[in-house]
C-alpha cells in the first residue's frame, strides 16, 4: 500500500508528556533528524522547575516544540500544528494553544480514571470522540488515539525488561511514528540510541525496536493515511549543525580563549538556566579552561576576578538572582579595570521567579545594578547560534578595554536551538591581551649629572596610565618584574593609581571610566536597518531573543503589503553611534520586550524619542502573530491607513 504524500512548507510539532516521559529527548532527536535533513528550524523546550513534579499532574507536564520549514524561519512558532500528548495532563495543559484543525496524537494507555482525575478531567475526553465527536472538546481537532504504551510493551517483549522499563521506550515509539509522518532520516537517532545505551544492551535494543516499530506502525496502519514532505531549506553554503544557546555560548568562550591566547577561568555557582555552560566548559580542560564550582555566586565572580588579575580571562556565569549577589564584585572589576565576562542567562523574576521560563527583565540591573557610577558594557545575542559570536565580542571588549562586560542571554536562547553555520576560525577576531611588560612612567628624564656623566632615564610603573585611544589601563600581571603594584576598590589617583580621596581626582576618574565605556562605540560597526522598501514610517527595535518574533512579525506585516523597518541591538551599552540618527528617521518606534519597558526607558532617556513599548512578561517568547497585529496597528496610525493583516486561519487568539 502506498500512502499519499503531501507537501508542506512548514510544520510546528509539540511533544508533551510527564516530566519523566523523556519529551525533551524526543524533541531533541526529532530536531536533530530535521536538522540533518536540511530543514531550517527553531525549537522551544518548556519544562517545570521541579526535577520530577508529581506524576500525571498539570504542573508536571514537560513539552518540546519544534518548528521546521523549507525556508528560513525565525521563531519556534506560535501554535502547534501537531500535538503529541502522552497523558491526559499533557493534553489538557496544551489544548488551549492549538488552532482549530490541528492534529493530536494521544497515548490512550494513560487515559485511566486515576490519570484523568489527576489532570482534572471528570470524563474521558476521548470517549466523546468514539461516540461520534459531537460536543466533545476535541471535536474541532483531528485526534489520533493510539495505544503507544501498549504497542511499545508488546514490541519490546523479547528483551525481557520489566513492564516499567519496557513502557519507558514509548517516547521512541512516538518519535518513530512522527519520523515516518514527516519523512525524517532515522540513522542519527539509531546511532544516538546505540551510543547512549551501549552499556545496557536490553534497553538499547528496546529503544531502537520501539523507534522502528513506531515508524512501521505509521507506514502500515490505516489510522494515518497521509505522510508529509517538507523540503530542505535553501540556506547559504557552509557546514551546519544544530546548536542550543548555552552550547554556542560555551564554544564562544572556548574560542575567545583560543583567539586571545588567554586561559579561560570560569568561577560559577550552579543556577538554572545557566548551569549547562559550567557543565560544558568543564569538558574543555584540554583548551586550558579552568572551571571552579564555587561555594556561592560571590565566590564565583571573586575567583574570576582573581584569575583575571593573574592574567587569565575570568568568566562568571549565572542568572538574574546571581547577578544581584555579584553586583559588588562587578563594581570591584569596574574600579580595578580588569577584564571580566559576566554571563547572565535571564529567567523570570524577581527573586527566585520562574527559573525555567524566559524573560528580559535584567537589562536595567545589568545597566545600573551597582553602587556608584559603575558603567558596564552590555552585549546580547539574538538567537541560539548567535550566542557564539556574542561571547567572542564580549571577550573582545573586556580584554581590549580592561572592563567587566555583561552578556545577557535568556532561558529561551539557552535551551532553544537552531541550525548554526559553523564559522571559519580565521574569520573570528584576534584578541590581543597586550600585557604590560615595561615601566611606563618617567620619573626622571635622562640627563647629565654635575660631573658631566650621562644619567639614565628612570621609570616606574603606573597602573592607571591609560591608552590614549581606548582609555584602557595597562594590564600588568604578577610575575612581571618591576611592575609590582596594588589595585583595589578604593578610588585611585589618575595615572599613579595610589589611593586618592581628592575630590577633583574622583570627579575625573568617574568621568574617565564613563568615557572609556562610551568610547567602545567607536569600535562598533554601523547598525543594519532592515527596511526593504525604504518607505517605512514605523521602526521596530529590539534586543536579545526577541529578534525572532520581531523579524517574523515584520515579515507578516510586509507580506500583507505594508512597510515596516527593523533594527536589532547587539550592544546595549554603549549604544551604537548611529542609533540616535536611525531612531529620528522614523515617525514611530516600537520596542517589543519581555519586560515592562526597560529598553524603552533607556531609549527615551538617551534620545528623547517616544519609544512605544510592546511588553510581555509571561515567561514565554512573544508570539509573532500577536506582535504583527501590534506593528500593524502602529503602521495604521503612522500612515493614516487601514491595516488588514488577514491572519492565517490557523492563528489562535492568544492574550498577550
Amino acid at each position, binding site marked *: 500500500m502506498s500512502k499519499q504524500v503531501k507537501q508542506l512548507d512548514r510544520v510546528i510539532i509539540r511533544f508533551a508528556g510527564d516530566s519523566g516521559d523523556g519529551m525533551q529527548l524526543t524533541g531533541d532527536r526529532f530536531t536533530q533528524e530535521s536538522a540533518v535533513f536540511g530543514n531550517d528550524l527553531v525549537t522551544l523546550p518548556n519544562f517545570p522547575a521541579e526535577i520530577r513534579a508529581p506524576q500525571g499532574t498539570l504542573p508536571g507536564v514537560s513539552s518540546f516544540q519544534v518548528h521546521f520549514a523549507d525556508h528560513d524561519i525565525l521563531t519556534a512558532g506560535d501554535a502547534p500544528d501537531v500535538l503529541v500528548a502522552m497523558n491526559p495532563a499533557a493534553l489538557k495543559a496544551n489544548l488551549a494553544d492549538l488552532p482549530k484543525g490541528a492534529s493530536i496524537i494521544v497515548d490512550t494507555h494513560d487515559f485511566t480514571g486515576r490519570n484523568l482525575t489527576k489532570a482534572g478531567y471528570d470524563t474521558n475526553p476521548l470517549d466523546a470522540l468514539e461516540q461520534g465527536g459531537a460536543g466533545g472538546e476535541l471535536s474541532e481537532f483531528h485526534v489520533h488515539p493510539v495505544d503507544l504504551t501498549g504497542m511499545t510493551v508488546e514490541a519490546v517483549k523479547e528483551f525481557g525488561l520489566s513492564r516499567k522499563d519496557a513502557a519507558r521506550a514509548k517516547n521512541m515509539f512516538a518519535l518513530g511514528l512522527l519520523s515516518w509522518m514527516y519523512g525524517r532520516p532515522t540513522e542519527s537517532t539509531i546511532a544516538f540510541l546505540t551510543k547512549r545505551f551501549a552499556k545496557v544492551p536490553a534497553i538499547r535494543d528496546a529503544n531502537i525496536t520501539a523507534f522502528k516499530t513506531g515508524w512501521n506502525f505509521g507506514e502500515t496502519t490505516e489510522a494515518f493515511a497521509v505522510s508529509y514532505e517538507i523540503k530542505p531549506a535553501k540556506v547559504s553554503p557552509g*557546514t551546519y549543525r544544530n546548536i542550543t544557546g548555552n552550547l554556542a555560548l560555551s564554544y564562544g568562550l572556548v574560542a575567545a580563549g*583560543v583567539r586571545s591566547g588567554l586561559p579561560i577561568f570560569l568561577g560559577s555557582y550552579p543556577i538554572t538556566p545557566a548551569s549547562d555552560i559550567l557543565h560544558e566548559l568543564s569538558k574543555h580542560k584540554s583548551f586550558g579552561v579552568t572551571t571552579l564550582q564555587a561555594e556561592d555566586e560571590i565566590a564565583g565572580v*571573586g575567583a574570576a*576576578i*582573581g584569575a583575571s588579575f*593573574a592574567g587569565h580571562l575570568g568568566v562568571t556565569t549565572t542568572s538574574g538572582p546571581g547577578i544581584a549577589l555579584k553586583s559588588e564584585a562587578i563594581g570591584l572589576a569596574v574600579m580595578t579595570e580588569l577584564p571580566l565576562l559576566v554571563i547572565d542567562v535571564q529567567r523570570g523574576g524577581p527573586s527566585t521567579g520562574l527559573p525555567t521560563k524566559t524573560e528580559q527583565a535584567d537589562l536595567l540591573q545589568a545597566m545600573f545594578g551597582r553602587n556608584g557610577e559603575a558603567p558596564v558594557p552590555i552585549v546580547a545575542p539574538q538567537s541560539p547560534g548567535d550566542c557564539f559570536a556574542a561571547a567572542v565580542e564580549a571577550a573582545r571588549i573586556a580584554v581590549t578595554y580592561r572592563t567587566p562586560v555583561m552578556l545577557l542571554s535568556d532561558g529561551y536562547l539557552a535551551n532553544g536551538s537552531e541550525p548554526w553555520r559553523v564559522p571559519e576560525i580565521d574569520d573570528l577576531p584576534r584578541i590581543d591581551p597586550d600585557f604590560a611588560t615595561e615601566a611606563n612612567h618617567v620619573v626622571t628624564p635622562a640627563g647629565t649629572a654635575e660631573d658631566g656623566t650621562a644619567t639614565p632615564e628612570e621609570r616606574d610603573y603606573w597602573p592607571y596610565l591609560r591608552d590614549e585611544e581606548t582609555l584602557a589601563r595597562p594590564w600588568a600581571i604578577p610575575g612581571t618584574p618591576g611592575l609590582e603594584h*596594588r589595585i583595589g576598590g578604593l578610588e585611585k589617583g589618575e595615572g599613579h593609581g595610589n589611593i586618592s580621596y581628592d575630590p577633583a581626582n574622583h570627579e575625573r576618574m568617574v568621568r574617565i571610566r564613563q568615557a572609556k565605556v562610551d568610547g567602545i562605540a567607536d569600535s562598533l560597526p554601523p547598525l543594519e536597518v532592515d527596511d526593504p522598501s525604504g518607505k517605512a514610517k514605523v521602526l521596530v527595535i529590539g534586543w536579545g531573543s526577541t529578534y525572532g518574533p520581531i523579524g517574523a512579525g515584520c515579515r507578516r506585516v510586509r507580506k500583507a503589503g505594508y512597510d515596516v523597518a527593523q533594527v536589532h541591538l547587539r550592544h546595549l551599552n554603549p549604544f551604537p553611534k548611529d542609533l540616535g540618527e536611525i531612531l529620528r528617521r522614523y515617525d514611530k518606534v516600537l520596542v517589543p520586550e519581555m519586560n515592562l519597558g526597560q529598553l524603552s526607558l533607556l531609549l527615551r532617556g538617551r534620545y528623547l524619542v517616544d519609544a512605544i513599548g510592546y511588553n510581555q512578561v509571561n515567561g514565554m517568547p512573544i508570539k509573532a502573530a500577536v506582535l504583527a497585529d501590534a506593528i500593524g496597528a502602529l503602521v495604521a496610525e503612522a500612515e493614516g491607513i487601514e491595516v488588514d493583516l488577514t491572519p492565517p486561519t490557523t492563528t489562535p487568539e492568544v492574550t498577550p
Partner: protein
Amino acid sequence: MSTEQLPFPGVRSGVELVPTNDQPQTGKEYTSDQEVRWCPGCGDYAVLKAVQGFLPQLGLRRENIVFVSGIGCSSRFPYYLDTYGMHSIHGRAPSIATGIATAREDLSVWVVTGDGDALSIGGNHLIHALRRNVNMTILLFNNRIYGLTKGQYSPTSEAGKVTKSTPMGSLDHPFNPVSLALGAEASFVARTIDSDRKHLTHVLSAAAAHRGTSLVEIYQNCPIFNDGAFDAIKSNDTKADAIIPLVHGEQIRFGVEGSKGLIRDSATGGVKAALVADVAEDQLLVHDAHNPDPSTAFAISRLTDSGYLNQSPIGIFRQVERPTYDDQARDQIATAKEGAPGDPQQRLDALINSGDTWTVV
C-alpha cells in the same frame, strides 16, 4: 554517580613552584612608598614590620608574591608592601586569592584579613578555602572588635561586650577561629601574637612552607576600641599562665617554670590542664601537629577563653599534608592537554564542527 581516584601530586613546599631570587633582599625592598595610616600603637604596625622583615628570608622573586585583602583596618596591608596586591571587597579576599592561586602555580599568595572580614561577612569563603586547601596563607588579624567602622562588637568579641551597637552587652556567642578552621579540616592552623616578632616570624615561615591553605590567627591589639584585650598573654606577670605554648614533639607545658601541663580528660574526651607534680610523666600530652586526626588539636583549641582572654594555646595546632585544590585542578588540565595534542586553532575548529553536521553547497 561515580568517584574518581584523584592523583596526589605529592608532598611539596608551599613555595616550591615560585621562582626564587638569587640576590639577597632587604625589608626595604618590600616597603612601598605609601604612608602607613594605622592609629598610633596599632598592632598592625608590628605585624607589617615582621612581614617586611620575613619576606626577604623567603628568597622568592618579589614580583611573584601577591597579597590580597578584604575590607577593614588590616586590609590596608597590601598597600604598604611593594609586591603585587589587591585590596578587594569585604570578606571576599579568600575567593579572589583562590582564583589567583588556581590560575598560577608560580605565585606565593597571601591573604590579609580581620575577624570581621574573615569570620563575619566572609565566613563562607574562609571555610571553603580551608576545605579546598588552596595553596595560600591567610593572616587573620584578630583584635576582637570592629575598628574601621568604629567600635562595634565582632564575631570574636566576648559575649556581653558593651559596644556602640550593644549598649546592654552583645548577645552573640563568639567564634574561636582556630576551632572553626580545624572543624573545616584546614591542613595548617596556627595562632600567634602581634607583639612576639620571633614567634610570629617562626609561624609565618612554617605557614609559607606549607602547601595548602595555612590559617594563621594573629592576636592583634586595637588600642582605640579594644585596648588591652590581650594583656593577660602579653604581660610578663601573667603570660606564663596565660600562654599554652604548642611545639610539635614537645610536652605541652606552661605556667611558671612549666609547672602545668595538658593531660587527657577522660570525663569529657577532651584535654585539660593539670599540675605536673600531680600527674605521671607519661600522662602529659606531647603535641603532635602532624596527627591526621584533628580531634586532639580541636580539644586543645577549646582551652582558649571565649570571654576575656586569660588563657590561650599559642603555636601551630595542626600541620598535615593533603592534596591542594589548585595543584589538582592544574593536574587535570595538564592531563587533558596531554590527551589532546595539537594546534588549539585546529582543535577549536574540530570542536565546533563536532556532533551531527551537514554541509550545504
